[in-house]
Structures are given as structure tokens and as C-alpha cells.
């Protein structure tokens, strides 16, 4: 199961570059990056190949970062792809704390990531519905 690193960032110029620079310097691959912005601050979320090391590097540089497991799934990058997933989640009563998507190969595959309390249960339910889940390696070495 993939791990997501979340970082607190002040909404100031250069903050994002600093994080990506730190990780690039440590040879860490960023697979996906997304930011939830609330005006004066933001929560940056990263899918990376070495989540624990990433978290340590960020903490050592004075940033607050957490790591957690998330469920990532493959959906066809075409109309209706996301709707199907949303229906399944509603039907299975899975509460989503946060969600975001990104495209792996333009026009071909989109990845949808959900943050839930119990990722194992959510993963089992989605698998049973025939959704293709992505493991760590699937994400980083696609």
C-alpha cells in the first residue's frame, strides 16, 4: 500500500521549491504532489518512493511532517471513471478524509488517492468491487 507524506507549509513564495529541492537533493522521487490551500497556510501531500526517509529529512529541516498509508486506485482517464468509484465508496459507506487524483500517462491512466481511517478495509472492499489498486511499486515504477 502506498504511503503519503503530508507537510505543513506557510503560504509564502519559495516554500514549495524548498521542499522539492530538499527531496531532490536526497535523491527522492516524487510521484505525485498536491496542495490543499487555506489562504495563509497549506497542507502539502506527496507520494514518494521513500516515505520514511522523506519524513525524516523534512523534520530535520524544521518542518512538521507526517506519514500515513493511503489507498490508490487506477481509473480509466475518461468521462465517468471517477463517478463509478464515488458510487462504490458511497455504497460501502467509506468516509473519505481527503482525496485527490493525478494522471500517470496522459490520456491513458488516472490514479485516484483516498485518505481513510481504515485503509485495509477500504482496500478490501474496493478490490472486491473489481477496482484495480496500486501498490507502492506500481506507483513509483510505472
Amino acid at each position: 500500500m502506498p504511503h503519503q507524506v503530508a507537510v505543513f507549509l506557510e503560504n509564502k513564495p519559495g516554500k514549495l521549491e524548498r521542499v522539492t529541492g530538499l527531496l531532490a537533493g536526497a535523491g527522492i522521487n516524487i510521484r505525485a504532489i498536491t496542495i490543499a490551500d487555506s489562504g495563509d497556510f497549506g497542507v502539502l501531500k506527496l507520494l514518494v518512493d521513500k516515505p520514511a526517509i522523506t519524513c525524516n529529512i523534512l523534520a530535520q529541516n524544521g518542518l512538521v511532517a507526517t506519514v500515513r498509508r493511503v489507498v490508490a486506485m487506477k481509473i480509466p482517464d475518461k468521462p465517468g471513471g471517477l463517478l463509478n468509484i464515488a458510487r462504490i465508496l458511497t455504497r460501502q459507506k467509506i468516509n473519505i478524509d481527503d482525496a485527490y487524483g493525478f494522471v500517470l500517462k496522459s490520456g491513458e491512466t488516472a490514479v485516484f488517492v483516498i485518505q481513510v481511517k481504515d485503509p485495509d478495509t477500504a482496500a478490501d472492499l474496493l478490490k472486491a468491487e473489481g477496482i484495480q489498486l496500486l501498490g507502492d511499486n506500481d506507483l513509483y515504477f510505472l
Partner: protein
Amino acid sequence: MTIWNKKFECISPGELEQLQLERLQSTLNRVSRNVVFYQKIFEREGIIPERIRELSDLRRIPFTSRRTLRAAYPYDMFAVPLREVVRLQTSSGTTQEPIVVGYTRNDVEHWTELVARVLTGAGINRDDVIQISFDYGLFPGALGMHYGAEAVGASVIPASTAGSRRQITVMRDFRSTVLIAAPGYGLRLARMIREMKINPQDLFLRVGLFGAETWSENLRRELEERLRIKAYDFYGLSELFNPGVASECEAQNGLHIFEDHFIPEIIDPGTGRPLDFGEEGELVLTSITKEAFPLIRYRTGDITTLIKGKCSCGRTLVRMARVKGRTDDMFSVLGVSVFPSQVEEILTRIEGTEPHFQIRIDREADREVVKLLVEISPEIFSDEMKKMQKLKREIKGEIYKLLDLEVEVKLVEPGALIGRGEGVRRVIDNRNRG
């Protein structure tokens, strides 16, 4: 536990009074001859040092304020010629412009002895390895501690401002048994120890001495738990000795003031009226041994109370409570008077840990705006944006409910506000600027 200087730390009240009176008379004599500021004041008020017969006569002399020291910058308050001064240090206090403080050889000797008392009071001895994590350049506390630590015969590591990781590597490898730092920085090191996945039990730390910024019992408990130490408070000010004015003993119940060197009073910061034991007010100190930079009835700006009664440690010197805040930190907005310590209490309760915050007051289009900047810590960070927004609303709501104060809450990155040495500025008031 051991007492460094039993003769003075356990002096009888009668003897102390006699000693204070003699030392006060000689100090007044010297300043009336050598410091123009005091010469003028004594003349104006008709004060003749030889006629000071009782300690209570001290109350006839007007206060000395920080403003006076600034006006005297650099050397006008010195009571000795510069050739007798062996050390000069500048104090860039938390809320103030710099002043210069000088020390004669005797001053440095006294200072060293007082710091030896501070360390001995915290149970520190020659077998200890003391890591001093104060800035040696700017903060007189670092050198002051250093001399005292050498006097008790301990091994001293001047770790100064090495980065947090390096501090901890040194702490582990050199087997530091004592950490001396600002309390906020102590907490930062505790967090870094966890980041580095070091078990505090694998360290040799047993005592922490924390000072130079206002802290609380909550933070003491947190530091003691996280670092597995006994944490002690000390008090001093750069204008006199810092550290070396007062310190805690093993009872951890108030700080013994070194009354053989300083005469303490508590006054109402508004009216200047003297207050009694147990009443909260501003601490006023008169130095009675200092040669280069003596101060008479100096208003420290620190809010505390004097504690009456015997201490279980055997010392007879009077105790002061932990400093609650600074008079110049108190602010009024739209008719509401607020102490930063009140904001601190609310934040501590919400965060469950020692908060780092700063209050900024601005005037925007004829309206007073109060911004509360709160540092994010691992304890309160959530990767769910809605929880972060809830936290902001909760802080704003509690402050409004309890202090009747409307604030704009801003969350900032860790370390954005943290200070070293002389501490974080709790309040920045921009209303009268520009």
C-alpha cells in the same frame, strides 16, 4: 543536597539585615560620588547616603528604569573608570534597545559564585558534564553559566548555537548530564531526540536548567517527562547578573533570591506602591555589591510575588515565584487588558503542549487588529485540512470567550517564532509606528 555557600545562603534574618544595610550604604555612597544620574537624583530628593539608617529608608529613593539606562548609553551609568572593567556585555533584551553592562574583576568573581549557587541548588556537582546551549555571543547568560560551571568543577561543553542535531549528537556522545538552555529550545531538542529515534533513557541527562524566557509549570512537567530529567528555573537579568539573581532549590517551589547581593521589593506597576508578601506585582531590585554597574531600585519589568516562610532546603533567603510575565508585555486593545500568559494558558490547554506564539497588534484603517501567530508542532498538525481549520476556529473562539478579545489566528511553521538566548517576543505592538 549540598549548599554552595552556607554562610550566606542560610544566614540569619538579623545578620542579613545588618549585612544588607552596610552594603547598601556603601553602594549609595559610591553611586552618589561616581554616577551623575544618581548624584542629581539624590540632590533633588535630599538623600544623603550617610543618613540611610534602615533598609526601609531605601523606599525614599526614586526608581531607576530601563529608559534611564538607554539614555545613559553607553557608559554614563558606570560607577568605575573603564580601566577597572574587565568585561563588557550588551543586553539586547526581548523588548528593548541595547544597553552596555560592565563588570569589574570583583563583579565577575561574585557572579561566578552566584552561578555556582544556582548550579549547586539544582544538585549539580563536579561529576557533571554540563552542556550550555545558550548563544555565547549575544547572551551574557552563556558566559555567566560557563564560569559558574567551572567553579563547581564540572566539565563544561560550550555547545552554544550548534544546530539541534549536533547538540543531540554531542549530548549522547559526550554523555552530558546537564542541559542549560531556553525552555522552548529544550522542548525543541526533546522533539529532535524523538525525530532521531534516540531513546531518552540511552542519554545520560539528569538535570535541566531553563531560563531566559517566561515558561510554565506545564512546560516543566513536559520537559521532565520527555527528557527524563529534573528541570529547574533560574532568574537573572542582563542589567545585573544573568543568571545569578535567584534560583530554584530541590524543593522546586520558588526561587531563592541572593539577598546578600540584591534587595528585592515588589511594587504595583501602575502606582509604584510597595506590595506585601504574596501580592503580585513588579519586581524591583537594588544591587548592593556590584561595582561597575550598580543599580538602585531598578524596575525589572518582571511580574512575580515574594514568598514568605521557611524552605525545606534549609536556605533562609527569600523566594520569588516563577516570573509570570512582563509589565511591558501587557497590552490593551479596545479597552481589554491582556497578559500574554493568559493567551499561553488557553493555547496550552488546546494544544496539550507548550505553545509558541506571538501577538501582533496593528492599526489598519483606524481599526485595531490583533493577530495571533501560532507555531505548528507535530502534536497539533493534521494532514486533514478540515481539522486544521477547526483548530484555528477553536483558538479564536476560546480567546474570544475567555478574554473578550477578537483575534485573527495565523498558523506558522515551527521555528518561525522561537527565540534563543533572550527568548521570544510575545507581543509586538505596531500601533504607534509610522
